[in-house]
């Protein structure tokens, strides 16, 4: 394949990246506080949680599904993790517990979709409510706090000046990107989203991989719960409300098609950064949070409009 063809395949990612760069240039012209090392690190830190959730979301959407339960699973994983920490479990035990909770919720989603044959929208909508209710029930609606100081390193620590949550998100992206592009599992995610019947006839174990995709999304929700709990130094049963929409927005701005079969994690990362930069910039400019919602909504719509206009055949 020629270099030009390779670039054309990467075109969508490059386009989104240019959008991000343009946004950054605009904001640095409008505000002297934007283009500083501390602010940029701050943006990345704030983006890390949504970016991690969006990893699982991207897998799910490429496979042709949707996961509305990520925010609630985050809350459930968070309170379980926090109650473990508060009762004296070391982080090395409590953290896997939180991840496991996310994985279990995701696995249930997957089984409902594959064996229960429920539309992913319905299965995860139900899970969204069930997990939220479970988190509220478990905590009786109260936040949990009071952890050993060592746990906070996950939020406040720095590795060579880079905040730990940013490092964690970067590692998640590198691993998830490798799995998506280089392994059999990743290949099957695309195949199932592209044409499930063709995948089945080609001998792909469709149900198993579909189930695993939802479990993976639960795990990334659990990871995000760890980061959020460390940052807030407490776990709230009402944490993560509307996070599913941010994750879907990042994925879609990043060029992943809701029809399934195509998309990249690089795109999703850029999409999450666009959302983060936009929020940060609008804050720096002192724009009201009400107006911010309108701006962010418009950006999502315009990004997808441009995308579908470019994809239309015979352009």
């Amino acid at each position, binding site marked *: *394949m020629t270099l030009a*063809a390779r670039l054309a*395949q990467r075109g969508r990612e490059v386009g989104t990246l240019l959008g991000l760069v343009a946004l950054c240039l605009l904001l640095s012209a409008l505000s002297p506080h934007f283009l500083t090392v501390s602010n940029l690190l701050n943006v990345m830190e704030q983006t890390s949680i949504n970016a991690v959730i969006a990893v699982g979301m991207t897998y799910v959407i490429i496979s042709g599904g949707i996961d509305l339960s990520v925010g609630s699973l985050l809350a459930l994983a968070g309170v379980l993790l926090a109650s473990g920490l508060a009762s004296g479990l070391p982080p090395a035990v409590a953290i896997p517990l939180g991840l496991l909770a996310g994985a279990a919720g995701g696995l249930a989603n997957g089984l409902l979709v594959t064996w229960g044959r429920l539309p992913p929208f319905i299965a995860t909508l139900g899970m969204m409510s069930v997990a939220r209710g479970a988190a509220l029930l478990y905590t009786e609606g109260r936040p949990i706090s009071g952890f050993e100081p060592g746990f906070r390193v996950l939020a406040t620590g720095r590795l060579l000046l880079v905040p730990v949550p940013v490092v964690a998100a970067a590692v998640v992206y590198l691993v998830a990107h490798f799995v998506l592009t*280089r*392994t*059999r*599992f990743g*290949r099957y995610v*695309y*195949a199932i*989203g*592209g*044409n499930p*019947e*063709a*995948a*089945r*006839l*080609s*001998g*792909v*174990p469709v149900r198993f991989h579909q189930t695993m995709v939802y479990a993976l999304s639960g795990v990334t929700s659990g990871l995000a719960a760890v980061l959020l709990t460390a940052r807030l130094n407490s776990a709230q049963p009402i944490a993560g409300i509307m996070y599913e929409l941010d994750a879907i927005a990042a994925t879609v701005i990043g060029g992943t098609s809701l029809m399934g*079969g*195509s998309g990249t994690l690089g795109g999703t990362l850029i999409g999450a950064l666009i959302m983060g930069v936009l929020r940060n910039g609008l804050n720096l400019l002192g724009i009201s949070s009400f107006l911010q919602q309108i701006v962010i909504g418009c950006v999502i719509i315009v990004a997808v409009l441009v995308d579908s206009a470019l994809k239309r055949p015979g352009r």
Partner: protein
Amino acid sequence: MEVPPAVTMQGIRKAFPGVVALDGVDFDVRRGEVHVLLGENGAGKSTLMKVLSGATAKDAGEIRLDGRLVEIEGPRHAQSLGIRTIYQELTLIPQLSAAENIFLGKEPVLGAGVIDRARLHRDAQGLLGELRVDIDPRDKVSALGIAQQQMVEVAKALSSEPRLLVMDEPTSALTEREIEQLFATIERLTAKGVGVVYISHRLEEVARVGQRVSVLRDGRHVATHRVGEVSVPELIRLMANRDLTEHYPKRRVPRGPEVLRVEGLSRGRVIRDVSLTLHRGEVLGIAGLLGAGRTELARAILGADPHESGRVWIKGEEVRVRGPADAFRRGLGLLPEDRKTQGLVLGLSVRGNAALPSARRLSRLGVVDAARERALARKWVEELRIKTAGIEQEVSRLSGGNQQKVVLAKWLAADVDVLFMDEPTRGIDVGAKVEIYELMNRLTAQGAGIVMISSELPELLGMSDRILVMYQGRVQALLAAEDATQENVLRAALGHSA
């Protein structure tokens, strides 16, 4: 001792709701042999091969591989048994590259599920090179032409050494040069002892590739011959020769003025320069094989798909149909091929469906007059003898025949001038079929014209006034009812002159 065949299928039965697709079929393929499988649309060829490749579960019957009884559990199992299939509809994932498609489900791995990309591309290159096709294995399938995609599909089937290769119309999109490559490949495989099942509608290919030929008709095995012992006309007779026991209650009415005229309609490779006329009181049958462009023709005339060139006159006036809604306003109606996905709103009641195209007429300021709607629905339920618990019954609960009558009621209620009927009696029991035919009579008696697309030759011959036969998007023949026989219609549908 005699060597057992590569595969033996015995007494294979498969029924779908409303239709028996395979009724005790026997079939076998020897090692190193190409066995051609022939039959009309719906004869059961593809279903038989889907049973063999694990895509569809059989209801009854036995399958033996090299004499050993096997129970095929699914596509993956069939592949592990060495059965590879090239399906009629391409089973490629457009977003993946050629190499990724070729090895989908059996990627070479370095370990821990990590794909060995160097080997993947090298092996894909090797396979494509063997087929002498010039495709970069890294190209996305969506960027390839249809013929190239078909060759990728062939490469995919050959990616692991098959014991048995099933090819369902592999040449339909290939050029002569590619067909030659494919046949050379088949020869190489059979020399190694691979058995091949070859399904095709191109009868001239039978003698070119096959050693034996079997004919299916209506889900039954009719004959197996050695190639060379049987002529092409004989094969056509075997495929077509059904018992004409069914009764067609055709009533001819005097032909009225022209109601539809189409000239030089073309759309890509799908419809090529088609012209036709339809008069009031007339049924124009459209025959042709799957993919001949019949449904596409109807969709283009109705404006559901765009066409590049061609002119259309409705009731003597030249029109540009802007879309289905526009077509319906001008008096055209469609009874679609798949009533469940295209003809009915399954969640709606009989009333809601029957009144749908008439909603504009039945409403004032956008509010539907419920009393008039109910009256209309009741009238048609009664007149068409639709068996339903009432007009508020959801149509999804009705039988196939009664659902089809509801679709018809939609258009009878809307007073159409031209009704396109695409496979109007598919999956419907005999009694309901006759009622549908009676309704066609009634429409023509009222002065409507009908265009009937059907894969059932006896039905076309029984109900049409004229039959237009399509082949590869073109009009291959136009026959008056008196001159049409099963044989000459099928001959034209296969691309020979009628």
